[in-house]
């Protein structure tokens, strides 16, 4: 007896399948390790979502393979051959059709029941012991208020690990959507309506966030940064925020301070002890932030000066006007603002 060698086509199929598997694995890995990935949850809320996502993914993958494989098989097996007789004119098969209708309904039960459980689990009422954060989405930046600590900050959200954070979302202008992919799903920020989102961060680290609802010209530039602190560090941050800003004696910074106090800046921005504007971001501890203009770029003197000279250039449509500052003035302002640690 001669041992049958695998045919050329089956070798090709095997190579193809291996390639597809390798590709799929590398894709899976590339999804895992990304700054804004949704499949590496870092909070309880994110984990619960991910569990359902994986359940549905595997279920649909099975159906996908069955249907697409079935389609290919049928096309191959029943391809027209020369001289084939007219096929039997079958009109249907009631039992078969009823059974696959029921089968589909059963598959949906597998997905539907855990879905409903998680819906209710993730929308419980917040407790008094939770960290409360009032989030305001504005064209095109984020304001974060901590009513329990009397802190207001912008574009950088600080959270402690292991404590449930309850976000109360509101927008003064148009609809935005508050989203930190690592920490779970998004929730729209709707004007004159307080929406709620709750999650407990489980791993310290820095996670980018971004507005996810189209909100006008610079929607793409409405980003923010989340810092989940290890135990103890968050309290330090709170104390630093509650203290008045440290000022430097650098003459350039001092010049910047008087410029700030005399110019239109004070109309929109608050710096504790200097101004009380409410329209733009609170700048009291601006120098302590890592990024500028809703997480668009690193908070360096050159970037801050560039921003002051022409906000619209960095963020099209920016609400902050171009005040016509000279290069010297904007550098002085940048030095002052960055000294506010």
């Amino acid at each position, binding site marked *: 007896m001669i041992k049958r060698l695998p045919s050329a086509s089956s070798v090709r199929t095997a190579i193809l399948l291996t390639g597809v598997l390798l590709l799929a694995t590398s*894709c899976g890995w*590339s*999804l895992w*390790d*990304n*700054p*804004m*990935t*949704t499949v590496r949850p870092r909070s309880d809320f994110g984990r619960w*979502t991910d569990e359902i996502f994986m359940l*549905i993914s595997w279920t*649909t993958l099975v*159906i*996908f393979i069955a*249907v697409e494989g079935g*389609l290919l098989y*049928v*096309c191959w097996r*029943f391809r*027209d051959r020369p001289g084939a007789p*007219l*096929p039997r*004119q079958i*009109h*249907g*098969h009631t039992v078969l*059709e009823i059974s*696959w*209708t029921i089968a589909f309904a059963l598959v949906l039960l597998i*997905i*539907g029941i855990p*879905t*409903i459980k*998680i*819906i209710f689990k993730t*929308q419980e009422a917040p407790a008094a012991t939770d960290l409360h954060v009032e989030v305001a989405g504005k*064209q095109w930046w984020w304001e974060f208020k901590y009513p329990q600590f009397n802190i207001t900050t912008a574009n950088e959200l600080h959270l402690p690990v292991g404590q449930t954070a309850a976000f109360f979302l509101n927008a003064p202008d*148009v*609809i935005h*959507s508050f*989203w930190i992919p690592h920490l*779970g*799903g*998004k*929730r*729209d920020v*709707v*004007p*004159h*309506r307080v929406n*709620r989102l709750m999650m407990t961060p489980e791993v310290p680290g820095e996670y*980018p966030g971004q*507005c*996810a*609802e*189209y909100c*006008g*010209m610079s929607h*793409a530039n409405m*980003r923010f940064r989340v810092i989940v602190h290890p135990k103890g560090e968050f309290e330090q941050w709170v104390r630093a925020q509650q203290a008045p800003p440290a000022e430097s004696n650098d003459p350039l910074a001092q010049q910047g301070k008087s410029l700030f106090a005399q110019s239109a800046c004070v109309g929109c921005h608050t710096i504790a002890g200097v101004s009380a504007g409410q329209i733009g971001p609170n700048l009291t501890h601006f120098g302590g932030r890592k990024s500028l203009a809703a997480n668009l770029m690193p908070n360096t003197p050159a970037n801050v000066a560039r921003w002051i000279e022409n906000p619209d250039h960095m963020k099209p449509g920016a609400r902050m006007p171009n005040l016509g500052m000279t290069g010297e003035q904007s550098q002085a302002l940048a030095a002052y603002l960055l000294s506010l640690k």
Partner: protein
Amino acid sequence: MATQAAFMPGAETKTQSVLWSWLTTVDHKRIGILYGSSAFILFLIGGIEALIMRLQLARPDNTLVGAQTFNELFTMHGTTMVFMAIMPMSAAFFNFMIPLMIGARDVAFPRLNALSYWIFLSGALFVNASWLFGVAPDGGWFGYANLSSAQFSPTHSIDFWMLGLQILGVSSMLAGFNFIVTIINMRAPGMTLMRMPVFIWMSLVTQFLLVLAFPAITVALILLMFDRFFGTLFYVPSAGGDPLLWQHLFWIFGHPEVYILILPAMGIVSEVLPTFARKPLFGAPVVIYSGIMIGFFGFGVWSHHMFAVGMGPVADSAFSIATMLIAVPTGVKILNWISTLWGGTIRFTTPLYFSLGFIAMFTMGGLSGVMHASPPVDLQQTDTYFVVAHFHYVLFGGSIFGLFSGAYYWWPKITGRLLDERLGKLHFWLMLIGFNVTFFPQHFLGLIGMPRRIYTYAPDLGWNFWNLVSTIGAFIIAVSFVIFIANVIRTARSGQVAGPDPWDARTLEWSIPSPPPVYNFARIPEVHGRDDFWATKYGDEHGGAPHPQPAPVTAAEIAAIHMPPTSYWPIVLAVGMMIMISGLMTSMYQIIAGGLFTLFCMYQFAVEYHRPPAAHGH
């Protein structure tokens, strides 16, 4: 158009110019061709908008177009593809095929049909005219309030979009009623509802969706119009209005709209598969009932577009379950189509390729749809590129593949010549590959956090590679359409002459010459069962012999056929309506003048047929 006119039916009296005969035509076949060619041009415009967006996103921090232009591009791409490309491409098939497939000589209201087309064209031109004025709509195809309010969108960009959609809605409503009446009343003797071809069934369901869904967006747009022009505050939250009201009204329209876009394609596939498998559609009644179920459930799931707005756990659960239920009839249809192929002798022609592409791609779109039917998962996926991938698998992988299947299938019936099979298959493979290269990576982009509608992104987020791949794919798709256009041009003169029944098909339209004469059927056929034309060739399902050949049609019979005369009032009325509506952006006098002119046209339109027939010179 000259080459088309040469083989076109319904050439009017020689004294009329070709152009005039097209402007005043009420022939459903010519109107179908007008719909199809206009929609295809708009489809190319929407495609070019997509290509520019893909170029902008090909690399991070790109500056090819600015934020404002990008926002205009995605708004116009969505609006164009939904309202001015896929819907009218489906309308082209409704127009051309419905009377032919039910054995009628025209639609129920031929002039109303012409009016629908001219209003559609004026609406499409109106919205696109915004580019010329430098105020292209920039609020998204969904135009969410309160970004669309006068405070946040002070230019005329939203006005062009809002009024244009209103005009397009009128066209859809008129067409919807016309086709409902046509299908209900004008079927050939013996064609009971359950003997109707499935394409006709899906068309009928689509028309009901049109006439029931469009009023919701009409109301939403009227409230928006009042907010913007007359100072009302329906959507203004600071005055107690509710921007979420817009979302509810929009999606009560918007979700049925999805089925308006996909059901015609499902109908086409249900015709193409049996023809090329040489077997009847498997479980036709179930396919029909599934279509009706999809249409019915389509009105009960709108809030699944709104899981992120914070409706509370009860509403989330209810809409989640309702949405998952839609997967049942949809899945059933897919298995019925595959079973249609089972046991057949499958001839792999271009129309069949596109239908198979439809099943394969639409299945993927359906499965990713099941994912975000689950609200927790949706909260991660909504407004990301995952959703962009999902609905392109449904609307491109589904509707566009289905519509091109229909185009290749019925092309010989419409023009009398077959499209080239070799170029057609090349078109198919390039489109299939390009489509998957473009949109499959967008699943990954969504899962790694790329939001929709962003004109730029930072380089350190891991989105660079897949965006570049997606852009390359988009250009492969563009090449595939160049090949389609080349195919059309090449075969217009030299294509193989089709004859009445080039595919050995099953339904009535193949029993008459290609292209059909102006009166379609010299003698209205009598129908004895489903796939009656097949039965006349091969005998019926009960083993009956092929039908005997009927007596040849006499010249006297043809002379006795009455066809409606041409009319220029539809196009004039459409122009009047556009003058009236665009007056909202200029002056009250234009509204009054346009309104009076429109009324005058309506009156003329209404009394036209009361004049003595001799006045028409026909």
